[in-house]
């Protein structure tokens, strides 16, 4: 995801190529899952959820960590685009985490009869991570100053990204004693299953990247629109004052995170 210059269209060829690739790989992955991968000896057809649930989990985890890394970049460079990317990465990972929880719950119900499995470390640590990251947006919305909002959100993102692996370790340790894992592990996969898994992982990763790029493009378009509106208002104000000094009004902070900081691409100079 590279930032586009202000004059390039929001939906560039990059996003188009990405979404086509994502769709293609997803189709291939689905085909592999249902037509190529062998049936699991233990769980039978139910195991097919594995190709959806685990890639979702992995991509969500990487997304949370990526959000933390981008937050570090923001704190170092103070460029608004890093904060925007961090926000989008975390937001999308949160959605993928919810999907992980739902698919994991369905899997638990199918293989164990219960809608939740406390002895499945992935599910449990995702629940905790979800509870933590669910506070990210309320935190952002509770801070009005855009620069402080971005700064505090970055601190949160970095803390949370460090938390996720530690949390997983702690939860894993606590379940090791009690019961054997219900939903099966990802090691020792036969080759055809492993190949299918890798392609599924790629598909989910591309989907994530596509959705994030889409979101970023929408945000950039919104920001450019806001700049345009501000210029138009200022121009209208200048015209009305018949040549008098027009105040460049600062647009009010809309209820979108990091709103003010997205005005960076605005052209400088007076009217």
């Amino acid at each position: 995801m590279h930032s586009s210059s202000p004059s390039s269209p929001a939906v560039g060829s990059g996003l188009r190529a990405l979404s086509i690739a994502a769709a293609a790989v997803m189709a291939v992955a689905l085909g592999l899952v249902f037509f190529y991968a062998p049936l699991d000896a233990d769980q039978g057809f139910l195991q097919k959820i594995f190709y959806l649930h685990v890639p979702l989990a992995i991509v969500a985890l990487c997304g949370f960590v990526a959000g933390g890394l981008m937050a570090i970049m923001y704190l170092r460079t103070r460029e608004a685009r890093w904060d925007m990317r961090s926000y989008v990465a975390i937001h999308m990972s949160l959605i993928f985490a919810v999907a992980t929880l739902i698919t994991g719950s369905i899997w638990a119900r199918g293989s164990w009869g219960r809608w939740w499995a406390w002895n499945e470390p992935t599910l449990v640590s995702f629940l905790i991570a979800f509870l933590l990251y669910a506070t990210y947006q309320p935190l952002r919305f509770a801070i009005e100053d855009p620069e402080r909002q971005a700064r505090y959100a970055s601190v949160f993102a970095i803390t949370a990204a460090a938390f996720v692996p530690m949390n997983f370790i702690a939860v894993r340790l606590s379940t090791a004693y009690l019961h054997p894992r219900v939903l099966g592990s990802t090691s020792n996969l036969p080759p055809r299953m492993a190949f299918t898994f890798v392609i599924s992982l790629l598909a989910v990763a591309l989907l994530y990247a596509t959705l994030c790029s889409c979101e970023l493009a929408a945000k950039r378009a919104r920001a450019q629109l806001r700049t345009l509106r501000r210029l138009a208002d200022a121009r209208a104000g200048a015209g009305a004052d018949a040549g008098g000094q027009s105040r460049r009004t600062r647009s009010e902070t809309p209820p979108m995170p990091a709103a003010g900081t997205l005005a960076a691409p605005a052209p400088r100079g007076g009217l």
Partner: protein
Amino acid sequence: MPTALLGALPALPLHEAGKYVAAAYVVAFAVVLIYVAIMAVRLSHIQRELGELSRRERAAAGRQPDSTGESQLP
């Protein structure tokens, strides 16, 4: 561990597992679709605002033919 059953036949199983697998994949599909719908709504908002802005600018440019001239709009 014998995985003797080849998945060449994507048997639609008559036992319960099929329902759960279908439910899981439907959930994932629905999430993506909901996202697309949200994006579509946002796109329509952006288009509406763009239309409004361009109308205003054209009107303003029309009223002052000797003004700065270059429209900021593409």
